[in-house]
């Protein structure tokens, strides 16, 4: 299917210039990040930063307005017993739940992210995907998480993927666009790197690893490759792109490893919720339990924290 390019500002990148990924090097680098020792005050600061970067997520077929309401309450009141906590960056829901989230979060500075474009498989026509996107934006979503057409990408139809991202970006209007590569289905780090470059040139504000529906979801390896792609893109164009690893990051310790990787790959400028997010559901409680452990000295139990 031929698509008409809707914006002329984006140009299809020269993918022959995308460097090959050294997988052994990536593994070694990732192992190094995990050996950093972050303790005491720096740990507390890191954990608070993690909290502020979370996109609190519920993406289940069984989601009800009540469940979304509960999630939004959790986003607002992370753990009231501990004063001085930041709130999460956003809640992330399906398009039909955006209006519920909007109502529940009224008056709070928390973004509403919605997945769109026939999430999670992306197996539908462009017009359906665009309608899906417009519907979410009209209902009040300030961020759209789209999925790329992995089938087309793997079949080599890269311009289709490129044009599709551009078209969705157009449909987003003012909403931020996060492009999900679903790295678990791309197979190799080289393809991850290529898809990242494609998405950034097509107008993504964020690139995101996974839907959370496919194993493996986010890993430090793919995230590092994507961060390096963001770094090179910034060097060539001067444009900052955000990063969102999603799925499988459920412990505070692992989240802090990601922050170390972010700091050492992209630097301080990216160390804010504006440029880095965690897509997660159970991560928040683990971070809260670690913060509570730091302040009380006693290991915590999930029994004393609200369910997420």
């Amino acid at each position: 299917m031929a698509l008409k390019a809707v914006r002329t500002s984006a140009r299809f990148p020269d993918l022959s210039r995308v460097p090959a990924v050294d997988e052994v090097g990536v593994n070694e680098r990732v192992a190094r990040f995990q050996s950093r020792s972050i303790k005491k005050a720096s740990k507390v600061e890191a954990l608070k930063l993690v909290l502020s970067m979370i996109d609190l997520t519920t993406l289940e077929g069984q989601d009800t307005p009540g469940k979304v309401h509960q999630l939004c309450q959790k986003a607002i009141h992370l753990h009231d017993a501990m004063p001085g906590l930041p709130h999460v960056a956003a809640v992330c829901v399906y398009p039909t739940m955006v209006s519920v989230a909007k109502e529940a979060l009224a008056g709070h500075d928390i973004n509403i992210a919605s997945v769109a474009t026939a999430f999670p498989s992306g197996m539908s026509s462009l017009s359906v995907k665009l309608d899906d996107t417009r519907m979410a934006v009209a209902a009040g979503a300030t961020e759209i998480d789209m999925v790329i057409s992995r089938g087309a990408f793997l079949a080599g139809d890269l311009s289709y993927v490129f044009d599709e991202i551009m078209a969705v970006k157009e449909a987003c209007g003012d909403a931020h666009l996060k492009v999900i590569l679903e790295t678990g289905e791309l197979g190799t780090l080289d393809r991850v790197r290529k898809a990242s470059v494609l998405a950034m040139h097509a107008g993504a504000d964020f690139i995101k690893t996974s839907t959370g529906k496919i194993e493996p979801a986010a890993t430090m390896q793919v995230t590092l490759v994507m961060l390096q792609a963001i770094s090179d893109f910034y060097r060539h164009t001067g444009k900052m792109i955000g990063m969102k690893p999603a799925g499988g990051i459920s412990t505070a310790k692992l989240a802090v490893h990601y922050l170390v990787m972010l700091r050492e790959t992209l630097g301080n400028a990216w160390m804010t919720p504006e440029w880095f997010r965690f897509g997660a559901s159970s991560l928040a409680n683990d971070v809260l339990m670690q913060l509570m452990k730091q302040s009380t000295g006693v290991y915590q139990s999930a029994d004393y924290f609200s369910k997420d």
Partner: protein
Amino acid sequence: MSAKKNRRIAVAKTYKIYIGGKFPRTESGRYFTLEDKQGNVIANLCRSSRKDFRNAVVAARKAQPGWAKASAYLRGQILYRTAEMLEGRREQFVAELVLQASTQRAAEQEVDLSIDRLIYFAGWTDKYQQVFSAVNPVNSSHFNFSVLEPTGVVSMLVPDSSSLLGLISNVAPAIAGGNTCIALASESKPLCAVSFAEVLHAADVPGGVVNILTGFRSELTEFFASHMDVNAVIYCDGGKAVAKTVQELAANNIKRVIARSRMDWSGDAENPYLIRDTQEVKTTWHPIGN
């Protein structure tokens, strides 16, 4: 030729800890050395840290609902199988006890009692509920009954002197009743606890149901008592100071505190009340017509 052949290098065992059905080394990388009376090195053991304990609690918590849901019959079978596995490795345990300054006769007696203790509690798994549950007479139109439910995750500072029998006499009743546990092995005689972990592993006790650490009492007691995700703590040694520490810290989340410091492990511990120690009583009021 044959003399040369026999001079092979003995393969010494690496004593590790047991968390979530796996045998890791301590995350801290520390160890302590066990010596016999002559000062010869018997083994190096993991000196577990509070983080090992934390990891063990996570494993125990994860395993608990599934283990509690397993039928009493199955829990009994698994305990029985543990006894079978221990019987098969009897000589190894006797040798380890002798290595740790026990006499041959005392060692044999302790291992035999340990095997029998497992059989004893295997038999109780599908009986304690009938014995301790009750239908209660009440002065209203209700059918009122009380049943036992496992308290959850139990941390145990098991006896220092009775290193195998004491361990088993604490672990077996707790898991017979559907709890999961974390035990800190005897500090002066830790070998049998690690070998017993291998027995549990071979007997298909699900990973995380029993977790065994080796290390120092003085370092770990406070965490065994204070962890908010532990529902009951058992201590078997120590004077008033230990009792005070454990009880004060356990009050944090109102843990059940079970003192077994005056227990005679060869006789007293063959007792179903040890199962009830780590059970909660749930009473139900069911309306009935007159």
